[in-house]
């Protein structure tokens, strides 16, 4: 309603000086607060990395800057804990979960975004409900199913369900796919293209960034997961992921903060590196999760 009052923007130069000063002042204030906040977000990382390079004795003091640098701490972490096993398990979990999710969830999201059928909206609402339902609610029967199959103690109960669709990925892919215009697909149909070819040759190639972003999401979620591996593998250390190993690290393998921080850095690093490679697609994905009602 207020738009009716819109007047072309007055050039800044003609504004009274007091107003210009206020604009300048708010510019400085915004940037100062921004920089200060940015530093506060960054500082924990700085302290973690600095401590990871300290000697064991210095890490037990209140000093913040390493007196001597010990990059050997990172190698020491691998000697203290079976980190390669943990990394391998995490990669297995995150990698296979992501692969399976793509196989099952891309078709479902494609159907939800591109065809009209009677139960489509109900189905989509069910996907949202599954996505937000706390996993604890359905945990007991699901755990019992895997126990009957003899798969508790391994990571398979976390990997295999992705063959039958992942609600969050279906939701995200559907939101992405809706942004791709249907015109090309219709043109292909007129040229006699079958539905399978329309999907695999026309629409999905155009959706590559979306597929990449969704895959990254699920990879991160699985890599970061603690609840799932704790539930299924806590009794079986051979199947522990990095998140379980790190949570135990200080208590099982070392009381040294420098090694604990080195292990922490090692767990954060892959995620952060991956993020920098695909930042744009990833941020767009996060944005799409912010559903407008």
């Amino acid at each position: 309603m207020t738009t009716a009052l819109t007047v072309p923007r007055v050039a800044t130069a003609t504004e009274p000086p007091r107003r210009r000063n206020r604009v300048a002042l708010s510019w400085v204030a915004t940037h100062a607060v921004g920089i200060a906040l940015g530093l506060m977000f960054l500082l924990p990382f700085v302290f973690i990395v600095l401590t990871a390079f300290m000697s064991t004795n210095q890490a037990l003091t209140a000093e913040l800057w390493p007196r001597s640098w010990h990059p050997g701490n990172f190698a020491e972490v691998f000697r203290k804990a079976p980190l390669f096993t943990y990394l391998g398990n995490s990669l297995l979990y995150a990698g296979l979960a992501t692969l399976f999710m793509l196989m099952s969830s891309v078709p479902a999201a494609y159907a939800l975004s591109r065809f009209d059928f009677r139960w489509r909206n109900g189905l989509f609402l069910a996907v949202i409900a599954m996505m937000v339902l706390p996993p604890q609610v359905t945990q007991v029967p699901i755990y019992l199913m895997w126990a009957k199959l003899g798969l508790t103690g391994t990571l398979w109960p976390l990997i295999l369900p992705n063959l039958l669709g992942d609600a969050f990925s279906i939701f995200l892919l559907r939101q992405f796919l809706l942004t791709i215009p249907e015109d090309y697909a219709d043109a292909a149909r007129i040229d006699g293209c079958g539905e399978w070819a329309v999907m695999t040759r026309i629409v999905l190639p155009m959706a590559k960034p979306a597929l990449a972003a969704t895959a990254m999401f699920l990879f991160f979620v699985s890599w970061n997961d603690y609840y799932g591996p704790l539930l299924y593998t806590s009794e079986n250390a051979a199947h522990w992921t990095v998140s379980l190993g790190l949570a135990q690290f200080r208590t099982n393998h070392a009381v040294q903060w420098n090694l604990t921080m080195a292990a922490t850095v090692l767990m954060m690093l892959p995620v952060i590196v991956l993020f920098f490679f695909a930042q744009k697609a990833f941020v767009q994905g996060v944005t799409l999760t912010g559903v407008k009602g």
Partner: protein
Amino acid sequence: MSGHGAAVAPPVGATRRGPFPRRATRSTGEQQRRFVLLLLTPALLGMLVFFVYPLVATVFFSFTRFDLVSAPQWIGLRNYRYFLHEDPSVWQSVRNTLWLTAVMVPSRIVFGLVCAGIVTSVKRGAGVLRTLFYLPALAPPVAATVAFVFLFNPATGPVNQVLSWVGIDGPLWFNDPSWAKPGLAVLGLWTVGDVMIIFAAALLDVPRDQYEAASLDGANAWQRFRYVTVPNIAPVLFFAVITGVIAMLKYFTEAVVAAQVASGRANHGEGTATTLGYPSGSTLTFAQWLYQEGFTNFYLGYTSALSVIMFAVAVGFIAVLLLRSRAFVHGGAA
């Protein structure tokens, strides 16, 4: 949401979308229907196996006494009575969860909004700031929590070190029952990036001319925020509240890891409960107690009752979310 069991019925009458009228012959319509069903089959199966069935089974188990060894035995409402009157820890976990919800949901939203406001109003370096603000949200929760227990460790941690420079005697944080939850809340603020990104996108969508019109009408900064920004981003704020509450309902990892690392004792593997809620049960959340009763003590019937209670709380919020989702179900991408 088991009412959506209807959703597993085969999709009937599939037609393609698009500008062209349905001049497809009967056989291509039939083909398309089969194609859609084929696409949806894995997901429909998944819905049945991992959603509909476990929901029903959980409700059934909640009326039974049940461990992994013997078959479930019907005991009526006994589990629920135990929850109400006898369970020594559950109410503490409820209080802790309520505390975390009351503090973390609003503070994360306000702080996320402030950060989003800054990221969207700086002209230079917005990309760098956005990355900086977002990075902690990306850090694996276990790693972030381990790091926080170190940063806030009372004796030598950098946080109390910095506080002492300005003459403040820092608290014991994760080792003090009254400061452990505030410590978790600070961790929640550090990882506010996911909320921030969503808010930033919403702020950029607010029509510029509405701000200009409000300015011409003499609205000050607060009034512009209150009467232009808030109504425009209201749906996103609403979504953040709902998902925030649900996140607190299942709040688990940070609390478990903080207790474990701060106490310096192992929790899983040995199956001991010495670190549960450390210090003094102050970080014991409802989700944690549910896990403990179910998968450490194997009171599967009782833990199913706790699951039903969690579901009852969640379902209200989920229902509101679904009702509000109507718009974007039809309206396309966010």
